[in-house]
């Protein structure tokens, strides 16, 4: 039962990056289109799940004093694997995400989960936690990407979804749109929570 809880908390209650405001750089940078957000989310999920598994298995071996350095080495190794795999099999997306693939290393969500969860819990809950958080992150990034792509470009996953005379609001796919969109979504989520609290 608790494994299921660990999994589902990443999907709504603690969904990154909306509830846990961590890992904002990739969230803002790559969500110019739904597809890019999804690819970044999946890459992060892979690293998060693998690093959670390995750190959970090694949690009794790693001395406490050097744990952060050890976590960073584990995470960096998986990031290099993702980098090389994407370069080999998915080159166009590798070009689009560019700088932000090596920067998965410094994504605070991954280090945060390693420190707060995987280093203290056995394999199965850690796996569930990593998978839940990863899927939550992917969903958030895809959603944010979809909103920005529809308003800023009139398309969704590259297909035209709005009427033909729609004039794209191109500032939404640039930096100000990213900040505005994330700010409004956070505000709306606070509003939903307030409503739930009032009812419950």
């Amino acid at each position: 039962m608790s494994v299921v809880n660990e999994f589902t908390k990443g999907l709504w209650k603690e969904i990154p990056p909306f509830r846990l405001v961590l890992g904002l750089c990739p969230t803002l940078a790559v969500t110019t289109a739904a597809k890019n957000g999804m690819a970044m989310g999946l890459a992060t999920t892979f690293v998060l799940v693998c690093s959670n598994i390995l750190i959970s298995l090694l949690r009794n071996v790693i001395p406490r004093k050097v744990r952060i350095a050890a976590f960073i080495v584990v995470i960096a190794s998986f990031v290099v694997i993702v980098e090389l795999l994407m370069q080999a099999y998915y080159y166009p997306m590798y070009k689009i995400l560019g700088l932000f693939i090596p920067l998965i290393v410094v994504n605070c969500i991954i280090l945060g989960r390693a420190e707060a969860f995987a280093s203290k819990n056995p394999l199965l809950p850690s796996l569930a936690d990593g998978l839940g958080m990863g899927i939550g992150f992917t969903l958030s990034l895809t959603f944010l990407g979809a909103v920005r792509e529809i308003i800023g470009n009139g398309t969704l996953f590259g297909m035209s979804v709005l009427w033909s005379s729609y004039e794209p609001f191109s500032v939404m796919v640039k930096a100000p749109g990213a900040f505005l969109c994330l700010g409004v979504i956070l505000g709306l989520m606070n509003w939903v929570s307030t409503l739930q609290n009032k009812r419950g």
Partner: protein
Amino acid sequence: MSDFLLLFVSAAFVNNVVLVRYLGQCPFLGVSNRLDTAIGMSMAVVFVITLASAVTWNVQHYILNPYGLGYLQTIAFILVIATLVQLVEMFLQKSVPALYRALGIFLPLITTNCAVMGVAVLNIQNDYTFVETLVFAFASSIGYGVALVLMTGIRERLNTAPVLSNLTGTPAALITACMLALAFMGFAGMVQ
């Protein structure tokens, strides 16, 4: 000389690290509550980014490239940055206690500031020479500081303003950042 000036303006304003390149968001939103902490953080960032860029450039060109180890870039850089931050912290504590008191608490946070790693990787991707790397790193970190201090100024004013209850805190900060990013878009086109 004018090349360096162009590079400086381009890195500091036109392609501002925080507001155009989206790097280092966590400290940007995290420590922009009070002016004195923001200034301390900016100085620490300038110091670490410039130093880290100088070291990682040499690591890339004299260790990784000659031995064909380019694929280890990510691991090598993050380790160099983490060690460097630790070293700087110990050095300042021993030799420049005054500076350590000002920057001390910000140094550990900087390891996970992706602006440091981001600028280090950008130096290599853009094929900069060593001097260009130094100018680019210094200018980028100055740009970071400018954005952080501006943001803090706005947020201090915002604290006394009536904001919708659901928007207080991070959402309001993000919307402020949006306005600031719009303003920085005005620099676009100044340098090609």
